[in-house]
């Protein structure tokens, strides 16, 4: 079969296969300037999966990925919890894409400031926006700006080494912390707050965060949601991690679970398993061993349902928070579409730390790009930005800020397919050659911007891993952009 023969050709000599790549679909031998050039803004999972799919689909497309930070990988590096290293394995896939001959990475380039979308569109046949959601939804209540109130985005950024969260210095000297929101990010925050320090020591959590958590007085974390147990947004893996977290015990309100067991009959499997685990944890009398474990536990966690924040209460003497006032809700309707309705009742919960985990939010990158500020996404149909030829989007910017890496992967492959369709059908005009990175690099140089290449990142990567070795961590992340921009070639081998 032809396939096998070509395969043997490939495995016997890679360079012979490479020659084939120079021949375009139109059959004529081509100079690289004829090749379609695509630019991707953002180097997180969306950017990389879109690039991967495009490169695989057409042998002539060149893809350039631009990233604002000197380091790639977006939320895989800055969002995934330090104690979830397996989730970060996807970096290996992204690394292979970045090192492909038709892919280039340009870090330290702020699209919207160092170069405009318009300039990118002039240099490339297509531009894909995959820059995710760097903002967060605000709670919208008085007292939200008080010391002691943080967005989960910033809190996670702090323990994961996001440069602009370096100086967060959250005050962990209180006993009770309240997390608003019950998604996986909320559970990550709860778990990091209550994990035994020894299990965090061997992760890539930042050193300042590790030290702060080692001194933390937080012993009780309440994870608060507007609706009920059947609407909780987290997934079972994260719930199981809380249930099994050493040194902790669960504390729930039994009445919150009235009617839940009965409602489970016709519910799809994922929701059913999740709810059953919650019911078991909240209501079932534990066996002897588990009871003993709970008695010895010094840290407490629990869900609180049917509560919406109405005000963050200030400690009059210390200009920081003293507690949070919550409105009591009841549910109208059931299932995913159930609505929380105020009952008029209120409840004050004393606490010294509030982490608001109610959603990330995308921001507009450039006034020339259509942006739906209500949904906080770029309006699109199957990844094609509406009313903007040659502009595409993928990832959270396309669908809103929910979804795990697998979701983003499918989403990005969809956008790549739309782009490929447009190239094949002629909707995207490929007849004129485009300069691609040649012109953008010239522009950046004129503006004093020095892009970080992927091999520069590999040097940073090595430095971080070497620094981590000393303390038994997979890496010790560099925390400042200036540090990342250092020339490491001198220091290689230290």
């Amino acid at each position, binding site marked *: 079969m032809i396939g096998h023969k*070509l395969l043997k050709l490939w495995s016997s000599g890679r360079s012979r296969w490479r020659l084939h790549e120079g021949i375009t679909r139109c059959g004529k031998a081509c100079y690289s300037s004829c090749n379609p050039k695509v630019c991707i803004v953002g180097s997180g999972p969306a950017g990389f999966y879109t690039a991967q799919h495009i490169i695989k689909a057409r042998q002539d497309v060149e893809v350039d990925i631009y990233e604002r930070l000197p380091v790639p990988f977006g939320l895989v590096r800055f969002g995934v919890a330090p104690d979830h290293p397996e989730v970060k394995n996807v970096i290996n896939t992204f690394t292979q*894409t970045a090192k492909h001959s038709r892919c280039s990475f340009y870090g330290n380039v702020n699209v919207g400031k160092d170069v405009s979308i318009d300039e990118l569109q002039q240099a490339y046949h297509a531009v894909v926006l995959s820059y995710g959601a760097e903002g967060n939804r605000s709670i919208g209540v008085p007292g939200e700006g008080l010391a002691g109130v943080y967005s989960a985005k910033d809190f996670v950024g702090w323990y994961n080494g996001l440069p602009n969260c370096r100086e967060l210095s959250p005050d962990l000297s209180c006993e009770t912390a309240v997390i608003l929101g019950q998604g996986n990010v909320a559970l990550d925050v709860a778990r990091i707050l209550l994990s035994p320090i020894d299990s965090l020591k061997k992760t890539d959590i930042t050193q300042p965060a590790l030290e702060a958590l080692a001194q933390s007085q937080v012993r009780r974390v309440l994870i608060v949601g507007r609706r009920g147990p059947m609407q909780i947004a987290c*997934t079972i893996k994260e719930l199981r991690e809380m249930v099994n977290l050493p040194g902790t015990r669960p504390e729930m309100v039994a009445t919150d679970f009235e009617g839940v067991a009965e409602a489970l009959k016709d519910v799809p499997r994922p929701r059913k398993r999740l709810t059953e685990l919650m019911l078991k944890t909240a209501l079932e009398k534990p066996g002897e061993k588990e009871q003993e474990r709970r008695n010895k536990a010094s840290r407490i966690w629990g869900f609180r349902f049917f509560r919406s924040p109405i005000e963050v209460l200030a400690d009059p003497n210390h200009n920081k928070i003293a507690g949070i006032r919550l409105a009591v809700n009841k549910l109208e309707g059931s299932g995913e579409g159930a609505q929380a309705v105020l009952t008029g009742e209120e409840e004050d919960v004393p606490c010294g730390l509030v982490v608001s985990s109610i959603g990330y939010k995308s921001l507009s990158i450039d006034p020339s790009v259509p942006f739906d500020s209500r949904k906080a996404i770029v309006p699109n149909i*199957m990844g094609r930005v509406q009313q903007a030829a040659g502009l595409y989007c993928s990832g959270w910017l396309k669908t809103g800020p929910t979804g795990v*890496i697998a979701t983003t992967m499918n989403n990005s492959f969809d956008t790549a397919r739309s782009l490929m369709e447009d190239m094949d059908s002629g909707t995207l005009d490929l007849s004129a050659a485009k300069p691609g990175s040649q012109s953008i690099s010239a522009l950046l140089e004129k503006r004093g911007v020095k892009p970080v290449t992927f091999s520069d990142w590999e040097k940073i990567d090595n430095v971080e891993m070497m620094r981590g070795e000393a303390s038994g961590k997979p890496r010790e992340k560099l925390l400042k952009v200036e540090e990342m921009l250092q020339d490491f070639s001198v220091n290689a081998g230290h």
Partner: protein
Amino acid sequence: MATSAAVRSSMGLTLRLSRVIPDCSTCSLYRLRSCVNSAANLQRTGSADSFRTINRHLQTSIGLYHSEEGSSNAEDPEDVVNVVYIDRSGQRIPVKAKVGDNVLYLAHKHGIELEGACEASLACSTCHVYVNAAHFDKLPEPEEREDDMLDMAAMLQENSRLGCQIILTPELDGIELTLPKVTRNFYVDGHVPKPH
């Protein structure tokens, strides 16, 4: 057709060949301390679980290593497991595999577009496949961790499994694995995106 299959295979190989290397010191799993085979991690997890996974991993890497070399030699017929992958366009791709092969890495070896983002660590659902009815019941029950990850997969069905957890045995000869079509209408048809 044949050309695109070849492109797919070679791209698959280009992208996946490094994963077949059994040398731990070059493996990012080992570097990230997340390889269950490494001594460092054995101490960390300390559970009986890791032994089961170790055997699986050892089988996997050894199995692949051998079949890599063996593809041009005569194969022991007792060892051959015939597998059919059905890709997202509905195309049937028959593959001759060996007992002990891992369905995910076998797919990679043949350029089939089955992602394995977390590299078989039960931390994602990107290797989600549907198993044909005749063979589904022959598979050992999924462990709880696999079920947890399956719960996150799009278009979960009764016959869903994670490819990285399926190790080929002689009873699985003739197994058919279908890649889920995550359609263009994934978000347009009112489906609610999974929470993060």
